[in-house]
């Protein structure tokens, strides 16, 4: 068996298109997942049960079902209830974003809860309302503590984007499949895809380690 990456390099265009697709869905899911997660996390923190209960149900459901099941549900099941088609990108983004929202909601909640009661009292004493205290005093401090967990989530989201290939969305793994089936070179094609993911994610992982170490030192 001889390794021959020439057949992979000949398809650089396809891989580039795949990388663009991966980055695109990653950006969508990162923004939606972490943004919606903040909303749900605040809901989990709320004292009214009208906010607390739905937020909790959302978190428990999406944390306790596999993402791939969610993606296939959005792709095959949801269109039956909706009057319009659902594209692979929409289905995969919905699944990954909602799943990530559930996980990041817990990060936000744990982060805000870790802030000392006295910070709230101090903000209140200065005449701030709940929303102001949260935005100006609690969140800025909490974000620092949450940062390593949030970058870990981002890495997870990046890895999850490969699941979009199950609904034939054009991303790196999907392109790898295509190249492997056209050139009969699965060894090289899938090795190349794995290496590309390593190149993207390795720096991010090392950055997270730095953040974790810095946080440990500061506290």
């Amino acid at each position, binding site marked *: 068996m001889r390794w021959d990456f020439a057949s992979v390099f000949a398809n650089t265009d396809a891989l580039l298109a795949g990388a663009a697709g991966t980055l695109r869905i990653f950006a969508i899911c990162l923004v939606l997942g972490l943004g919606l997660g903040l909303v749900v996390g605040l809901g989990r923190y709320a004292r009214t049960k009208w906010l607390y209960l739905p937020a909790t149900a959302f978190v428990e459901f999406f944390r306790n*079902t596999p993402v791939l099941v969610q993606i296939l549900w959005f792709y*095959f*099941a949801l269109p*039956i209830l909706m009057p319009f088609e659902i594209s692979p990108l929409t289905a995969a983004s919905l699944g990954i974003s909602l799943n990530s929202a559930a996980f990041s909601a817990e990060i936000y909640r744990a982060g805000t809860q870790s802030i000392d009661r006295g910070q709230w009292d101090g903000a209140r004493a200065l005449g701030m309302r709940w929303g102001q205290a949260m935005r100006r005093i609690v969140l800025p401090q909490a974000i620092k503590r949450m940062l390593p967990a949030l970058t870990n989530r981002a890495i997870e989201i*990046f890895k999850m984007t490969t699941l979009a290939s199950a609904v034939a969305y054009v991303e790196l793994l999907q392109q790898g499949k295509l190249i*492997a089936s056209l050139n009969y070179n*699965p060894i090289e094609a899938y090795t190349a895809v794995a290496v590309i993911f390593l190149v993207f994610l390795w720096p991010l992982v090392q950055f997270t380690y730095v953040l974790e170490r810095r946080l440990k030192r500061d506290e």
Partner: protein
Amino acid sequence: MAYQWDFTPVLANAPLLVQGLLNTLKVTGTSLVFGLALGLALALLRLSPRRAFAWPAGLVIEVFRTTPPLVQLFWFFFALPLLVGIEMTAFMAAVVTFSIQSAAFFAEVFRGGIVSIERGQWDGARAIGMNHAQALRRIILPQAVKRMIPAFMERAIELMKTTTLVATISYADLLFAANEIAQKTFRPLETFTVAALIYFVVIFAFSLIAQLLERRLAVSGESTVH
């Protein structure tokens, strides 16, 4: 136009779903056993003072934590058999992938647990004449494992969710069975909803047990989950 929900075609195929769930549990269980054993070995190698052991173990752990599991699965299913010239069933590929992948995560849990045991325990074991391996087996690991239980449960639950990926290489797990039924009955909405609910019930039950254990261990101050 309101959609008419009809679960009877799904119920008629219940045996397929049950078989799928059993296969899911089979892959999860097998990968869990191998993953734990391999994870412990990787952790011990990574903690070794010898560079020649620590470095390759660290590399395996980092590579498998950093690449997407689906890419790993495809590599082990489509590429590895050609490289080494063996036949690989979907089940074997899944077990190999998820064992190594979860081992990489378990290794970090083991390492965290072992490192968290204070120096004095090692010194004490040494003082009563134990060698390194004895101290590890009799003194350190029993204490460390107790602290690691919540993190293990969390990883095991992650593993179970990850096993759904085997459906993409046509292993008849619960998700694959659901896909088959959806195509056969033209009832994707009902089928995938039922499949999602089955996953939810099983995984949520495990999560509740994990939370219970975590709370109990937290009472005795023995948890490493933060």
